């Protein structure tokens, strides 16, 4: 899951970015509104965290512009102002949720999870495919009741497959949603990670879940 963080306070952006990366999210940071709109045009984000007080144009106008462009990516507003009027104008400009600084990081993570599963039929944090299941809250992965240890990137990759079960997932989709802007898409890093993941998930089982679609990408089939 790839997140755009729009925050001008470098130190705040810093810890949110690090905290989210520890939670297997791919994170890009924009320090002002113009940059945020540009980055959103270039990359497909699964969620945008938007500070209201920004240099130049503020978060509210950024949010409005994104919504006017028919971009329905969930937006989580972040600000130091916490009175009802500010919350109302934030939500009215098109934001999906609102968090006041200083916030608890756990709460930020919970709100992000809630926003990301908003369009899913299954609203719990556990996603299942065949005998494989992952818990988005604890990041535990089990196959046939047996726990499997994954690295941060492997988990993020598997989660993306699980959210698109029985659908073809291209390398571009993976690079855009599992990695951030620093990723160099001309390498074969994705194939390497998919192989690691296959070794951990499929090698001990007769029923293989991850299949290669030649020339296109991969599919996780139940």
């Amino acid at each position: 899951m790839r997140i755009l963080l729009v925050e001008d306070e470098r130190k705040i952006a810093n810890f949110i970015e690090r905290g989210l990366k520890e939670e297997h999210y791919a994170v890009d940071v924009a320090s002002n509104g113009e940059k945020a709109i540009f980055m959103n045009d270039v990359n497909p984000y699964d969620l945008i965290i938007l500070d209201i007080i920004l240099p130049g144009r503020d978060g509210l106008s950024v949010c409005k512009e994104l919504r006017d462009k028919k971009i329905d990516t969930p937006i989580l507003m972040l600000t130091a102002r916490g009175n009802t009027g500010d919350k109302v104008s934030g939500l009215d400009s098109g934001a999906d949720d609102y968090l006041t600084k200083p916030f608890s990081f756990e709460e930020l993570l919970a709100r992000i999870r809630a926003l990301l599963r908003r369009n899913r039929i299954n609203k719990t944090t556990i996603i299942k495919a065949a005998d494989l299941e992952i818990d988005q809250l604890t990041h535990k992965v089990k196959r046939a009741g047996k726990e499997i240890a994954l690295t941060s990137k492997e988990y993020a990759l598997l989660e993306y497959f699980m959210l698109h079960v029985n659908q073809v997932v291209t390398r571009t989709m993976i690079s855009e949603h599992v990695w951030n802007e620093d990723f160099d898409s001309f390498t074969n890093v994705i194939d390497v990670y998919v192989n690691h993941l296959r070794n951990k998930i499929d090698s001990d089982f007769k029923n293989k879940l991850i299949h290669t679609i030649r020339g296109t990408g991969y599919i996780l089939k139940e």
Partner: protein
Amino acid sequence: MRIKFNSIRFKISVLYVAILGVILVIYSGVLYLSLYHSLYDDLDNELLLKTRELNNTVLSYMDAVGHNRQSFIFALRRAINLEGEHPDQPKIKELELQWFQRLDKLDLKEDYINFLDSEGRPMVSSKNLDMGLLSILTKNSNMPNDKKEVFRDVKLKNNNMRVICAPFYYDGKGPYIIEIGTSVKPIMRILKNRLYNIAVSIPLILLFAGFIGQLFAIRILKPVAKITETVNKITHEDLSARVKTENVDEEMKFLVNAFNDMISRLETSFRHIEEFSSHVAHELKTPLAIVRGESEIALRKEHDPEEYKRVIRINLEESKRMVKTIENLLLLAKLDYRPEIFKFEKIELTEFFREIYEHARTLAFNKEIGVNIHMPDTPTYINADKFHLRRLFLNIIDNAVKFTPKGKRISLTVKYNGEKVIAAVSDTGVGIEEKNLSKIFERFFHVDVTEQEESDSGNGLGLSIAQSIAKIHNSDIHVKSQPGKGSTFTVTLPLKQP
């Protein structure tokens, strides 16, 4: 419409009704008295006319039948009571008809007629006079002196009477007395009726006037109700309401305008406070968010000791930043509201600026910025608060260092100009854009910094504090700037006169 006794509306209507009441009572009283007099005058005239007519009738009789005592008595009885038959009746029948027609017109039948001789003894009297009445009329009859008529009122049990006494002469004999009394009942009825009308109509008019007065008062006081309505709408959250001034009377307009101006001033200061507290919240919540976020993330998982050290360092920095912000806010509050904390004393400027120069060098050292000073070395004195004046210059220098790139220069120039000292801090930094020049002294103003400079943009209070300190020293800070080339901040202070 409920009446409140301490309301202006009620007072206005009461005053209105009271004034109207007094006017009405005086007016009605005057009318009543004039009516009373004119009715009595009419009655007297009528009585006078009656005596004359009777006089003429009797004399005409006697002219017809002869001038002797017998025909005199006969004429009296005939005229007053239509008694006795005269032998020459046919001869006088026609005359009589004319007389009686005239007498009838005067309606003598209802009156009491008494004819007395010159000694005051009744000779002939009308039949409606019983013995009692006759004696009353006779007893009180007084001889009209100097041949003039005399009027008097006779009080009876249930019938007051107006009585005329008029002299009567015939053939030089007399004076006899004609006494005619007439009841004042009809007059009294008219007067009573009038009095009744007055007594009933005045309260009715006043009641009606009171009602009209209330309506008037409501109309006059309508703007007050409007003001009240508006005032009730105003809360600390919404000060946008104003009383409409169109269709408001001139006097009320002053009140309404004054009131609207007051709300405008309140609105401005409320917005100011709101903005200020929002800035304060932002300045304090940002470091808090950093401290909290860094700590929470550090505690979620095991990290290496270097990471913990980094988090502790950040937390320390941020708590220092909060303390600095709070100190600056407290200082600003003191500058604004407690100017008495300043201790003005005689300061020697050469020494003072040398200290400033040393501080400036320390501040600029880390960014490898050079500092120049140009200053005459004649001892010069100024009356100032040394601690805060130093703060003023250091804030300006701090700002200059912040916006001057590494390796460039800052200069401090001091000049004495008769009664003034002019101190200028020039930098060779990024300069200030024209649109921001007027804003740099505002509280919490931040220039929209680009990424290279964002390392430490401060809390936006430094220049604001400098400006407040300058104001307390009867001075002002002027700034000139060329974007890309640098800025010059100039402080002009009055010298202490020897």
